[in-house]
């Protein structure tokens, strides 16, 4: 930046600053992403609080139903945790400006996402409760649907971004998008841990 005279004013010339934004909190996109993460995080918090609030209202949990089966949920937990690796590669590659590494790791993220959604389908079948059985069933389905909607949204986002990355030359702007999309994926993975523990272990432990 330099200072020069413009029509009687001194000026701060910002033409030397990086254009097309910046990664992380320096850039604008990060704030939008984090803003929505906070909003949706609040939704998860509210739903989890509600779960435990309703738990306190009855003696047995689950009331007159059997516990959810652990298998598919645990497979999903393991896969979600592993999916962090291609996601991390994509994020780092984007920040380093490496187009091919971004492309293949994003593609891998999409594959993970699709597999996770398919497994999620089986998970719903192994909950041993319907949403209209009782308040417990409503709560379990609510937590699962909430997380699945987030999963679906991010798989959608990632697919669109991957399609963009494959079909067009990548620029800094796109790299910022890929990086912040990676941040959002961490958010989805992180929320699955308390949701998984609540859905599958609260009935067993509490």
């Amino acid at each position: 930046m330099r200072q020069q005279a413009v029509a009687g004013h001194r000026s701060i010339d910002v033409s030397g600053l990086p254009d097309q934004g910046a990664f992380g909190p320096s850039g604008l996109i990060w704030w939008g992403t984090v803003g929505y993460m906070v909003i949706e995080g609040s939704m998860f918090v509210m739903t989890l609080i509600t779960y435990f609030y309703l738990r306190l209202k009855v003696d047995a949990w689950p009331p007159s139903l059997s516990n959810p089966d652990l298998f598919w949920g645990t497979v999903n937990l393991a896969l979600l945790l592993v999916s962090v690796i291609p996601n991390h590669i994509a994020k780092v590659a984007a920040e380093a400006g490496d187009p091919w590494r971004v492309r293949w790791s994003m593609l891998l993220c999409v594959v993970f996402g699709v597999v996770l959604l398919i497994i999620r389908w089986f998970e719903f079948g192994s909950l041993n409760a319907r949403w209209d059985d009782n308040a417990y069933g409503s709560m379990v389905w609510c937590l699962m649907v909430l997380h699945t909607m987030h999963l679906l949204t991010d798989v959608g986002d990632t697919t669109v971004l991957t399609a963009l990355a494959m079909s067009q030359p990548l620029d800094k702007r796109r790299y910022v998008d890929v990086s912040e999309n990676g941040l959002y994926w961490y958010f989805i993975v992180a929320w699955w841990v308390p949701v998984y523990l609540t859905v599958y272990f609260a009935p067993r432990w509490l």
Partner: protein
Amino acid sequence: MMPPLTFDPRRSGIHSRARGNGPAADGTAAERAALEKTWHVPEGILGWFSVVDHRTIGRRYLVTALGFFLVAGILAVLMRLQLAVPDNQLIGPDRYNQIFTVHGTIMMFLFAVPVMEAMGIYLVPLMVGARNIAFPRLNTFSYFVYLFGGLMLLIVLLLNSAPDVGWFSYPPLAGPDYTPGKRADFWAQLITFTEVAALAVAVEIVATVFKMRAPGMTLDRIPLFVWAMLVTAFMIIFAMPAVVTASSFLLMDRLVGTHFYNPAEGGDALLYQHLFWFFGHPEVYIIFVPALGMVSSIVTTFTGRPIVGYTAMVLSLVATGFLGFGLWVHHMFATGLPQLGLTYFTAASMTIAIPSGIQIFCWIASIWRGTPRFTPPMLFVLGFIAIFVLGGLTGVTLASVPFNLQVHDTYYVVAHFHYVLLGGAVFPLVGGIHYWFPKITGRLMDEGLARLSFWLLFIGFNITFFPMHQLGLMGMPRRVYTYPAASGWGPLNLLSTLGAGLLAIGGLLFVWNLARSVRSGAVAGDDPWGGDTLEWGTSSPPPVYNFLHPPVVEGPNALWDRSADAPVVTGLRTDCREVLITDVVDATPNNRYEFPEPSIWPFLAAVATSAMFVGSIFTAWAVPIGIVPIAIAVTGWFWPKRKEAAA
């Protein structure tokens, strides 16, 4: 001598390099033309739906919210006519239930919150020296979602199918057993519409305030109105998810047979009240805090001095934001909760009087120490102080559990919250509209009409609502469509209705003043009041790019502290919508970012979203089916145009 700037270019590690569009002293006209072309507001029908400009969307939000205010005001007049005399049969009980429900719902969700956000959308970017609001397409999307949600409510009102279970729609009354049909579903889904819109604006405002402030606008130089909008945005972000949860559970209980609020199957009806009021109490402050910011702006300008206790004011706003979340149970004192909990919430409710009190004293001190000019905006501020102090006092009485139980659901409560909301939010808002009208339109509102409307509103307000305190103490419950003559409530109700007539005349006069001044008001010039914040440093109305050169701020009162040769920002591209992104704390320039062009996709996304919301009132299948057009619209929204892709 050059005053020191607040950032050090060397620290940023960026070396200057010349670009082709660097300004020159004689290039101003060419630069203006280039900016005019780049930031143009699209025309034509398609253009109308594609606008991404914060001033246009802010104006639309404002006009739409005032339109809803008018509708809810008409409903209020109808209620007052019905209650004017005992045993009145003008409006039947079913219609009356719809009217008071829709009145409250519109006032809270379609007027009060959106109108404050409208002011924020219009003013925050100008006050921080930015070219547009952050995420402008999201802003457009938000407006249309809000508009469609509001239209849905108006249509069902005209179809005699409006919600009729009160603006907070408690189960079990609002549940599937006691309110069959679709009325309560329209209410629940209206909440979804308005929350989606409000949350989007909240994120935009946070990002704009944190990342788009003019260089030099450090945290301690942010105008108080901007601080107020920032606190409000954070409150929206943390409070509104609770009401979305509450209303979604209600909708699911009604539509797909879940049991969240059904005690017979392990649910809990009181859960709804907790979720609702965890939002509902902060909601009061979401409406009130922006108004505090408007009062501070007006007081600063019309006392001609920096506000007394800037830091205390900011801390009070932030404290209000935090404390607002610790009070929700005081709406539930009559639900039989444990005594210890009630005691805590009594104490918390009284605590919140402290930050409000600090601000009142700071304003009084500013007026005392300054040279006040009693212009119409200032009159509304004084009216606000009088009415709000009364509302605050009845608030302290309501925080006391035994008294609260005594007047629960009576007209005392109705009087209290109208003093707080109309006095605390609408008076400052009307003052704020008089204050910023010249900036928005380039013309002044007529002063004589403004003074007349102020006195009509002030006197009318007090005649309408003051007697309600007494009616409440006499035992008149709220939400009754009529009452027997033997109750003795007739005379005070008649007085209240006469007051409502004055209030309505005052309101119409204000609207008429707005309408005529847009066309024929005196030309205002850039800064008719001698204001201190950046919006007064550009033309009225501002150009599409807001500032020819984004300003650099040299003190807490940006325009008053500006040196004769104040520095400006140059070097932003004029051939694309480039904006300057600065750091959160000290507003040091950090990077440049290109904002999106106008686009029809946010509107289409809003149409698709609205279709899904309305559809899901009737069938749960609307959700999986409705996601498809939403996904297509959102993809279109984010998919870069060829020009952008090649850039």
